[in-house]
């Protein structure tokens, strides 16, 4: 159903525009009941109705996004072609008083993996985007020149982005607010997105839809930024009860379940992981790092100012920012950028790690893939496979120079910009053996050999090695299994954590809230009931979560998935961790876990649905 028409350009900088958007009236609480589809090639945009059956079976966020992309035929497209779609998807909870609910999902086919990619982020973009009167914004086509896509009460228009070309994500956001007005919320790409680095991010309020290269997809569409403003709010089914429930959740979010995030931030994982020998070091060649104490948040904060911040509409506030010693501002430090730009590259200088994190933020680079790819290149140099003698483990200047090269693109930069899997194929000499990736996505900061339920989660992950779509490390950090000798009985536990993540990513709530729930599926059902009025049960939500995971698999199968890509880098299946000989996996042991997982999902033993 298309309700907006194109009209001719009205000024040289305003390339295309539509009439104002005629909003559909949704009787469905929590939703607007439609998405906005924008063809960037033709400039035509229009609303498409979303029926209740679809919304109830997918909820929103990742769940809805994957289904929309399947219907758009995105699995079969080149993700950087003009035919490809990218969806910014909200959820029924966005705009509600529930803590951590100001989130959106960016869903597309990943140019890094060629598989489904759903990245989540928090910011005012979610609130303002939903207030445009849509449950999702779906972009296809390619703008004729670098543009800002503006969506507001006046309609949809493309404005020239020439003045923003090459700017950092931060500076782009600042200037956009200055030029358009502070009521606009923006999602931007940095130089990395403009250059289609395959692990470029989309940034907003300093947060990133980080993994899998959604920034490259937006860059390929010639979109430097999306700016949204709106004032349309859906109603809630039971507003008074929802406010009361939200108050209780906020209260609980100040309790012990989130103390770690509030007081220390995720970076405090570093010393724990180091002690357990699962801290990926020097491209996963070791599981502990001699310089770990020096770069721990406890140590970094001794000589630096530390401040706390939070995403929009969050009462937890896990963000810990550390001042750079050269006085040029402060940097958000999380476990993932700390490990990837620190131990993984052998770096023990906190100032370098902070500067590298800042650079990744500004360029719009996924820190895990950036660190993983550079660490891989460092090992290639060590082994004489790459003739770049300056690129060495432990050398901070090497790390910073490599990051610059990725975005500015000399020959080595172009190679690095493709991620470790493609780089290994280009280098040859069996270097794929130690490329730190699954399905092309660089592995996060958990050595799978010492966290073997997580190993399973990484291997079967629909978007590759990912700690946000599978929380299986929770199983390893428990008395339920022996983390270094996990058997097939852990498969159903891996399924359970993946299902929980799928539901959280569709509702969309922050994962750091998970400890606040006593009975996750039942309480989620109650939340959804108060927002939408649906009499949902815990059992229905379990089935929905399982269906969302299967839908991601469906997407991947259409995109060309085969069972042999559910694995880990060969070296990890051959060599135990040198610092913990118990931490060993084999092709056979991982294969047994994968078969058990597939059967627990109700798929064939090989993983076909």
């Amino acid at each position: 159903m298309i309700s907006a028409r194109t009209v001719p350009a009205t000024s040289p900088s305003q390339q295309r525009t539509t009439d104002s958007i005629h909003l559909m009236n949704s009787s469905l609480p929590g939703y607007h009941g439609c998405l906005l589809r924008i063809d960037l090639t033709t400039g035509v945009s229009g609303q498409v109705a979303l029926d209740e059956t679809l919304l109830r079976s997918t909820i929103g966020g990742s769940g809805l996004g994957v289904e929309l992309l399947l219907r758009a035929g995105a699995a079969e497209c080149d993700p950087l072609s003009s035919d490809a779609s990218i969806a910014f998807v909200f959820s029924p909870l966005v705009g509600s008083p529930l803590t951590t609910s100001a989130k959106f999902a960016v869903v597309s086919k990943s140019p890094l993996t060629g598989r489904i990619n759903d990245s989540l982020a928090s910011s005012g973009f979610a609130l303002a985007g939903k207030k445009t009167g849509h449950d999702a914004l779906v972009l296809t086509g390619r703008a004729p020149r670098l543009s800002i896509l503006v969506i507001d009460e006046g309609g949809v228009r493309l404005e020239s982005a020439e003045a923003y070309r090459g700017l950092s994500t931060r500076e782009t956001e600042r200037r956009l607010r200055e030029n358009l007005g502070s009521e606009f919320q923006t999602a931007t790409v940095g130089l990395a997105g403009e250059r289609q680095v395959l692990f470029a991010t989309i940034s907003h309020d300093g947060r990133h839809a980080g993994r899998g290269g959604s920034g490259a997809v937006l860059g390929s569409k010639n979109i430097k930024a999306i700016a949204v403003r709106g004032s349309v709010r859906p109603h809630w089914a039971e507003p008074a009860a929802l406010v009361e429930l939200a108050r209780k959740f906020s209260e609980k979010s100040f309790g012990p379940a989130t103390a770690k995030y509030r007081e220390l931030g995720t970076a405090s994982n570093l010393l724990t992981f180091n002690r357990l020998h699962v801290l990926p070091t020097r491209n996963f060649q070791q599981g502990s790092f001699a310089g770990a104490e020096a770069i721990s948040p406890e140590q970094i904060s001794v000589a630096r100012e530390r401040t706390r911040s939070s995403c929009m509409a969050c009462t937890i506030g896990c963000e810990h920012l550390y001042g750079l010693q050269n006085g040029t501002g402060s940097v958000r430090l999380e476990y993932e950028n700390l490990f990837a730009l620190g131990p993984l590259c052998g770096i023990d200088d906190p100032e370098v790690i902070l500067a590298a994190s800042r650079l990744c933020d500004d360029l719009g680079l996924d820190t895990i893939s950036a660190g993983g790819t550079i660490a891989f290149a460092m090992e290639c140099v060590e082994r004489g496979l790459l003739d770049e003698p300056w690129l060495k483990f432990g050398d901070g200047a090497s790390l910073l120079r490599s990051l610059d090269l990725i975005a500015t693109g000399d020959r080595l930069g172009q190679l690095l910009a493709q991620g470790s899997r493609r780089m290994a194929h280009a280098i040859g000499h069996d270097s794929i053996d130690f490329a730190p990736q699954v399905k092309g996505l660089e592995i996060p900061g958990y050595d799978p050999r010492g966290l073997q339920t997580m190993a399973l989660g990484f291997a079967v992950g629909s978007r590759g090695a990912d700690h946000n779509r599978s929380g299986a490390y929770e199983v390893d950090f428990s008395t339920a299994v022996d983390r270094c000798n996990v058997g097939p009985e852990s498969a159903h536990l891996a399924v359970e954590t993946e299902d929980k993540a799928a539901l959280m990513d569709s509702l969309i709530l922050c994962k750091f809230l998970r400890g606040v729930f006593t009975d996750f599926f039942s309480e989620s059902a109650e939340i959804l009931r108060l927002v939408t009025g649906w009499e949902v049960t815990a059992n229905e939500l379990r089935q929905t979560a399982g269906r969302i995971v299967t839908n991601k698999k469906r997407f991947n199968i259409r995109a060309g998935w085969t069972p042999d890509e559910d694995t880990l880098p060969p070296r990890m299946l051959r060599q135990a961790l040198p610092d913990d000989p118990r931490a060993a996996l084999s092709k056979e042991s991982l294969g047994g876990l994968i078969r058990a997982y597939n059967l627990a999902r109700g798929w064939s033993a090989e993983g076909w649905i």
Partner: protein
Amino acid sequence: MQVVVELFGIARARAGVARTTAVGDCLGDVLADLAAQFPPLAESCIAGRTLRPGFLANLGGQRFVTAPDTPLADGDTVLLLPLDAGG
């Protein structure tokens, strides 16, 4: 029995030390001793002879344990960790 205790994350922040010693024949005894030595640690991490929700113990970096009657030997190392390892 005397055991070495290593503390991480919130447990370290509350106790104010990264490493200490405690006495006891089982995990429950050691937790009770730690609670007596470090009252702020007791407030957030230890309830009597058990760990509060959100915390775990680990023996020697290998096996996670929570049961108070888990036996300990002289010289064992007990790690006190936040349960939530995610980032």
